[in-house]
């Protein structure tokens, strides 16, 4: 009945690619985003400027443009990676900017006294950030980071434009034959909604678990 069910194998395989991209890029962007935030609050001016520039650049350049650049311009510079890894890397560096913005807002919620207390105890700046500031900052921004992860999962669809056979590409392909766009894309939309919902619920759980009582 539903063409997506008739093509279940293709859909599941493509969904697997979508989830793989979302998970790998999600983890990668959180790690990179935190590092960018660290650079942004570091005492080294050059690092701060670089991190600020990084965030501004990636927040202001469309993801599709970055994907096209990475897929079509890098080979001209002599660097040709397979498509899916390329898309994942682009998603990581792109979403890391949004993660960094979220984490920075979390850092701002951590009272200066926390940093002063840890420095006064003899922790180095790196230790203070790692053990005191970032754990608190991250706990404060679980939901915003969850939202970035939802956006990331949705943004994996753009990889369809550069040849990655993820869910959207597979669904397009199925519709090409079945020609029932409303049914097919609604169904795909429901799958994406499911992914978003799962991330949102997970973020909610994590948030409740790690929330700091003040």
């Amino acid at each position, binding site marked *: 009945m539903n063409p997506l069910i008739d093509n279940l194998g293709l859909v599941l395989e493509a969904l697997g690619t979508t989830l793989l991209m979302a998970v790998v890029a999600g983890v990668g962007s959180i790690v990179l985003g935190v590092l960018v935030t660290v650079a942004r609050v570091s*005492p080294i001016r050059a690092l701060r400027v670089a991190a600020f520039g990084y965030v501004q650049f990636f927040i202001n350049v469309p993801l599709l443009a970055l994907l096209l650049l990475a897929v079509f311009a890098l080979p001209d510079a002599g660097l040709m990676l397979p498509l899916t890894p390329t898309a994942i890397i682009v998603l990581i560096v792109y979403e890391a900017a949004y993660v960094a913005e979220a984490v920075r807002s979390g850092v701002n919620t951590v*009272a200066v*006294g*926390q940093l*002063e*207390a*840890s*420095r*006064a*105890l*003899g*922790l*180095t700046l790196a*230790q203070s950030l790692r*053990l*005191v500031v970032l*754990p*608190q900052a991250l*706990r404060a921004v679980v939901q915003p980071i969850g939202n970035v992860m939802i956006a990331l999962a949705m943004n994996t669809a753009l990889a369809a434009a550069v040849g990655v056979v993820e869910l959207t590409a597979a669904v397009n392909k199925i519709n090409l034959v079945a020609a029932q766009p409303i049914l097919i894309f609604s169904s795909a939309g429901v799958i994406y909604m499911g992914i978003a919902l799962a991330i949102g619920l997970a973020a909610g759980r994590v948030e409740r678990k*790690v929330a*700091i*009582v*003040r």
Partner: protein
Amino acid sequence: MVSLRGVDKYFGELHVLKHIDLTVQASEVVVVVGPSGSGKSTLCRSINRLESIDAGEIRVDGEPLPVEGPALAALRADVGMVFQSFNLFAHRTVLENVTLAPINVRRVPKVDARREAMELLDRVGIADKAGHLPAQLSGGQQQRAAIARALAMRPKVMLFDEPTSALDPEMVGEVLDVMASLAAEGMTMIVVTHEMGFARRAADRVVFMDQGQIVEEAAPDQFFDAPGSERARSFLASVLSH
């Protein structure tokens, strides 16, 4: 143990510390008093370089204060500090607050760190709160936890910046008692406080600051009974009148 020589500090135009000279001997308890805004906190914070100074020299245990970096961290490890607002790590239990620095800075094995932390918490009377988060403690308990946290580093000197000012009156005593017992055990202490009773009871010396200057240094009895300066007299008159 701690010596300041000709220390000047500005916040922009504002001259907050004006050529401060102060020496604190080992095991000495120095209480710093003075009107609000006189520079007491700044003095205290400059000793472990939470504030940098613009001129002069500060030595701790004979060593000049290092500039940023690992050497400064090592010095801070030897100088305990207790803040007005406690500043306990909000995401860690009381026990973890106390063990964090010994484990990560002193590299004390976790088991030993925990054992020593429990001893300290017991000593400040909150061993039963070890597993609680700071927010679950009263102000007095939090401040005692903060003192235990600082002591866990076995500091050579302890700095207290108005440790009881944020407390409800009924909790002030429990914190001052801990501090008094520390003093009695021979800890070198610099205490900024408005608690004149504590100053009289526990201090070896009282330092009176006003407008960024040390106006008077004297033994507590002498300072409280016969202040040498007009400014100290009017300050005492105002704090003791209520």
